[in-house]
């Protein structure tokens, strides 16, 4: 039985692909004919589909746990020395397995939609499940035709080549699943948009139904991106936390578009406005998720050679993306003109500020897309390979974010339809002044006062104070704010906290490269670093060196840091730095080993990064806010009428 696991996995994957393509066709037909028996098949079909893909995924996981190196994918990404938890993570450590994970999560989302949407119009539900089934089917085809993880080797390998050491890290165990949960989650909003367009029913109820799914997908993507950035921060050894690398951008673009979508859905839900725009955003967000998955997974961006080395994959990618996006936009062109918004709003109102939010976020998405694809275009034109780096992105991105942050402070406290400027100025004018004043003091406490740092901190304080003030005034009036309101303000404060982290660490970090022998010390930003000892270290699948460095400030011990340098047996030519970090609330002290100098001395890189941790606290708070908003009663069918 065990010997047949790869075949079992492959068989259930084939069955899943056939089933998903058929059930998509069946459900579309059912919805078109309004045949209630056909449409009722949506739930059992979604259940069967997820069971088959789950079985296939379980087979692959078992192959990794059993060290079955007769399967090429297992032999390439695992080894007997690899610790068990990383053997499970290795299932999605390569192209094939991670696509299977993508497919599994898509099927689970489909099942969740099928099970929790009894209140939804049967024809709409059938179309939503049909769209998601077809997406699953085309991904499954891609897996089967170009990248099956179950392919056997002609001659079984005796030992595996092991998972890339860079990926052997707790952060990277959960990073891809979270990211994919986000990518795939946007398929629900996408399927709702397509289903809604086909049924011609894009209304407030449609938007309200889409909101929690979109927000939950966004929560996962936020956490995934934050963990990826945290990983880069401690693993790459020089304390950078965002690189505008194409792979990062691939996840950041759907995040930006998804953030815009959440906000435009709110306007469609509450006021019935921006209908066609919301639908378009839902299509674009998922298209960017598709693009992101494929750009990363095909290796098109990180190394342009991968495109040429497996042209079948590249071609499949292009055709699939063109079909999905092209067909959706064609449907949009045909059906969107019938969508009409009757509600009117004044130039100063919640609607118009949400519109500003959407415009800024979309321009930001577009500029990241341009910067990411430009090198690809230049290469396609055969002009050589180029990198568009942080200078471009910072120059374009920061000026777009400043007005967005400003609007973020006003929007949540502005009324729908119309709000008098005089009243807003009276309520918030002094908040702006106080924020500016506090920001100057804050920045002055950290280092030399610079305009950009003051603006960044002031905007963050502005958002926070305005949110807290709104909550306080609601509570004072005896209202009990809904969970959605708490969630919104919490997520916005999360943005503010991340902005403080980004502003202050970019402006005031300091670093030093030193060479220390045991007993010697160096100082940086008021901290004193003393190298106690350095010696060899032996891990399960690596050898390494570990240093012990005490950090003190004003004579008081702060921490003992143990940075490592590891050489994995599978990749002797590529030493890995394991930085050691003292994560204080106000600053991180970061130590990384460079190279051994002579017999006992070490080259050591020291970093002082004020408020850097706030970037991730902020990300966490954003995700938490999203989760709280999802839990609001108004999104639960049946409960709302009782209110």
């Amino acid at each position: 039985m065990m010997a047949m696991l790869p075949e079992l996995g492959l068989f259930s994957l084939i069955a899943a692909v056939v089933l998903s393509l058929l059930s998509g066709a069946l459900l579309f037909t059912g919805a078109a004919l309004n045949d209630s028996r056909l449409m009722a098949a949506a739930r059992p079909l979604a259940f069967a589909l997820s069971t088959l893909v789950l079985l296939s995924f379980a087979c692959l996981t078992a192959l990794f746990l059993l060290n079955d190196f007769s399967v090429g994918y297992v032999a390439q990404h695992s080894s007997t020395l690899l610790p068990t938890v990383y053997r499970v993570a290795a299932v999605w450590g390569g192209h094939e397995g991670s696509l299977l994970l993508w497919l599994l999560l898509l099927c689970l989302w489909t099942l969740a939609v099928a099970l929790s949407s009894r209140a939804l119009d049967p024809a709409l539900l059938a179309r939503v499940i049909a769209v998601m089934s077809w997406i699953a089917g085309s991904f499954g085809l891609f897996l089967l035709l170009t990248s099956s993880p179950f392919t056997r080797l002609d001659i079984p390998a005796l030992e595996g080549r092991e998972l890339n050491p860079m990926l052997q890290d707790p952060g990277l165990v959960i990073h891809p699943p979270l990211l994919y949960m986000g990518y795939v989650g946007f398929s629900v909003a996408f399927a709702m948009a397509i289903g809604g367009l086909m049924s011609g029913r894009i209304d407030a109820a449609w938007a309200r139904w889409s909101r929690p799914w979109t927000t939950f997908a966004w929560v996962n993507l936020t956490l995934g991106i934050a963990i990826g950035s945290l990983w880069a921060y401690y693993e790459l050894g020089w304390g950078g936390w965002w690189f505008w690398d194409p792979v990062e951008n691939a996840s950041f673009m759907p995040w930006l578009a998804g953030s815009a979508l959440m906000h435009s859905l709110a306007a469609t839900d509450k006021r019935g406005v921006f209908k066609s725009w919301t639908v378009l955003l839902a299509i674009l967000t998922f298209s960017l998720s598709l693009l992101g998955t494929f750009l990363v997974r095909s290796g098109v961006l990180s190394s342009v050679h991968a495109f040429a080395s497996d042209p079948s994959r590249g071609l499949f990618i292009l055709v699939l993306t063109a079909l999905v996006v092209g067909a959706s936009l064609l449907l949009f062109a045909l059906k969107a003109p019938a969508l009409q918004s009757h509600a009117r709003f004044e130039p100063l109102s919640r609607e118009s500020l949400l519109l500003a939010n959407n415009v800024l976020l979309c321009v930001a998405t577009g500029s990241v897309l341009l910067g990411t694809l430009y090198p690809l275009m230049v290469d396609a034109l055969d002009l050589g390979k180029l990198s568009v780096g942080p200078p471009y992105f910072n120059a374009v991105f920061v000026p777009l974010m400043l007005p967005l942050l400003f609007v973020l402070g006003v929007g949540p406290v502005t009324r729908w339809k119309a709000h008098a400027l005089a009243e807003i100025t009276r309520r918030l004018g002094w908040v702006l002044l106080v924020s500016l004043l506090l920001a100057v003091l804050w920045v002055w406490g950290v280092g030399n006062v610079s305009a950009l740092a003051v603006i960044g901190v002031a905007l963050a304080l502005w958002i926070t104070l305005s949110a807290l003030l709104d909550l306080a005034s609601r509570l004072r009036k005896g209202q009990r704010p809904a969970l959605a309101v708490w969630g919104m303000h919490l997520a916005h404060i999360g943005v503010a906290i991340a902005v403080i982290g980004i502003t202050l660490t970019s402006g005031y970090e300091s670093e030093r490269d030193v060479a220390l022998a045991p007993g010697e010390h160096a100082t940086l930003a008021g901290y004193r670093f003393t190298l106690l000892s350095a010696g060899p270290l032996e891990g399960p699948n690596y050898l390494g060196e570990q240093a012990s460095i005490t950090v003190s400030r004003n004579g008081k011990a702060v921490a003992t840091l143990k940075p490592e340098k590891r050489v994995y047996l599978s990749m002797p030519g590529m030493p890995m730095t394991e930085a050691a970090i003292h994560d204080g609330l106000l600053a991180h002290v970061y130590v990384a080993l460079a190279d051994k100098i002579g017999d006992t001395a070490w080259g050591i890189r020291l970093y002082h990064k004020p408020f850097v941790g706030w970037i991730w606290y902020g990300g966490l708070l954003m995700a938490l806010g999203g989760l709280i908003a999802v839990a609001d009663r108004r999104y639960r069918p049946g409960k709302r009428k009782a209110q």
Partner: protein
Amino acid sequence: MKKQWIWALPLAVFVVMVGFFAASLDKDPRELPSQRLDKPAPAFTLPLLENPQASFSPAQMHGQVWLLNVWASWCAACRSEHALIGQLAKQVPVVGLNQQDEAGAARAWLAELGNPYLATPTDDDGRVSIDYGVYGVPETFVIDKQGVIRYRHLGPVTEQSINDVLLPLIRKLQA
């Protein structure tokens, strides 16, 4: 129902994008004319990465053939060409113009991959790169004994471009 066409705009934009991408795959404009070709290399004085108190200016290279290689630690293609730059550096002095980088990251990058450069001036605001007409990283310029730019290579150097173009040109100029 006026302005029906506006709803097809997203589709039209997408079709143009796909069309452009597909069409561009066939084109092959290998040589890119450079405004600076056969003109004197623009003068500059920039601080060095290893030692910001010291500085580099092209005048210091007068009388020898040299390469100006524009790089940055954030640039993936630079990483791929770095070993080849190291080989070139055995034949001809190479100056590494570090473009819009973080000093720490750049130093760590050189410590990891090796430092083949005679000097690494730091172009923090990218002004010098603009003077040279650099529009992407990496780029490599061949500059002759009189300080005239004789060749500009876009993107990472390859084994082929070194053997077929760069080395023959360098030998000719050195003679």
